[in-house]
């Protein structure tokens, strides 16, 4: 959504076959006719399956199938769909399911860039490390011995207060473990829940902290230089400044 808002024609593919929810979050679940698996099987054309976003006409969504299992996706089929999309779209975002199984493997296999989204917890960071290992060894670029996938780190559900209390890993802790370029930090925010409940991506909520964090992240990815705004505890800073507690 952020990329499309910046004027780039963008497609989002949901690779979470069987557990589709991208269309829910994007608020287009009631317009799903065909899905990703239909396109791979030749039961529908891409144009029939792609759903144009109601908020932004440069954004299209290719929903996952809810009725098939993950074996319905094949590497060859996914490659074909991506090749076709490439002709028309500037960016193709593949939303990977959690885990290291087939869906995740196919979502990352053809990637040029990868965004690893992690929570500031040891187990989540460890899983991310594992995914990075797979990106570096099992992706098409790795297999064909090409220049490796560019990897970016997104740290989400971040709460500086809880970091201070020692309940959460800090940005530095996570950076230390993963040693990866940090594209942005998304604060823990009620606005995310509101957004997903109402089916409008949080980035459209320009007043929200999480929305702003995502906007910064997109801008940074596109080459803008923006300072990180959500790493430090701003509220705490002012609280301390005014001596109230």
């Amino acid at each position, binding site marked *: 959504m952020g990329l499309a808002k910046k004027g780039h024609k963008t497609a989002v593919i949901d690779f979470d076959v069987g557990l589709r929810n991208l269309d829910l979050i994007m608020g287009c679940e009631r317009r799903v006719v065909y899905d990703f698996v239909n396109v791979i099987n030749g039961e529908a054309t891409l144009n029939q399956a792609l759903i144009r976003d109601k908020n932004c006409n440069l954004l299209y969504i290719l929903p996952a199938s809810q009725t098939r299992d993950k074996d319905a996706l094949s590497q060859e089929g996914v490659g074909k769909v991506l090749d076709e999309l490439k002709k028309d779209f500037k960016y193709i975002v593949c939303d990977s399911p959690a885990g290291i199984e087939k869906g995740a493997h196919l979502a990352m296999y053809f990637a040029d860039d990868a965004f690893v989204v992690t929570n500031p917890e040891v187990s989540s960071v460890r899983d991310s490390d594992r995914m990075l*290992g797979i990106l570096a060894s099992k992706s098409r670029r790795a297999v064909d011995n090409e220049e490796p996938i560019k990897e970016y780190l997104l740290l989400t559900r971040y709460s500086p207060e809880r970091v201070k209390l020692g309940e959460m890993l800090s940005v530095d802790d996570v950076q230390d473990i993963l040693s990866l370029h940090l594209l942005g930090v998304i604060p823990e925010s009620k606005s995310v829940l509101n957004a997903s409940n109402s089916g409008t991506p949080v980035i459209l909520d320009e007043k929200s902290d999480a929305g702003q964090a995502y906007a910064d992240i997109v801008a940074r990815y596109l080459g803008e230089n923006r300072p990180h705004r959500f790493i430090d505890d701003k509220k705490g800073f002012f609280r301390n400044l005014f001596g109230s507690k």
Partner: protein
Amino acid sequence: MSIDSQKMPNSPLALEFKSSTFSVPVLVLCSEDLVVIEQQLKEKISLAPEFFRNSPLVLDMQEINKHGYDIDIAALTDIIHKAGLLPIGIRGGNIQQNKQALELLIPVYSIHSSSVSTETQKQKTITPTPEPTADIDTDVTTSTLITQPIRSGQRIYATGDLVILAQVSAGAEIMSEGNIHVYNTLRGRALAGVQGNTEARIFCFDLQAELISIAGNYKVSEDLDETVRNKPVQIYLQDQALIIKDIVQHHKNHSRNIR
């Protein structure tokens, strides 16, 4: 036949021969006692079961033949299969052993050291050399350089020295028949001298390892006390004990007083 070959130019290329170099563990055998071999093989594998699972293997018969031992290749292969390893070659074998290996569909490799025995030379004449050769790189003197992080779940095996410039994550495993150098943080498992080289050492910039091992002598994270953690150390074997020492040797151990 002739019709087929006429069709050839139109059909897409179905195969291609390429030459490439692999790193494959070599099992050097020094005993003819199959029971002992089986037992020691099991012990070695138990150190890194994940690494050895379905691992290819080249059998090295040089030591056996130097001592004039006799060993049944079929029985040996059986033991190795049972241990979950897959022999993909034999080297340094005599005529009898090589013939047995070929019957088991195990290719025969020549040793590219200067000391080629007359038997193996004779062997060459009856051994079909596959063309082009997939050269199995078992040269112990080569070292492997890695500049990318080794992530959780990744495994690296080097026949010679292993030099890593990036970090080794928790849940990663690096193994070498020689020395291991990690010029970064070592959080995973590091096993040097895995073929029994007790002279092998591990060097790392920041020791936070889950396990360190030299020639099968190991320590787990719990065994590492605070004085050796989070700093540059070297690890070596002395009288079968793992010694962990600051890389920088301070005079009269003054370094301890600073902290």
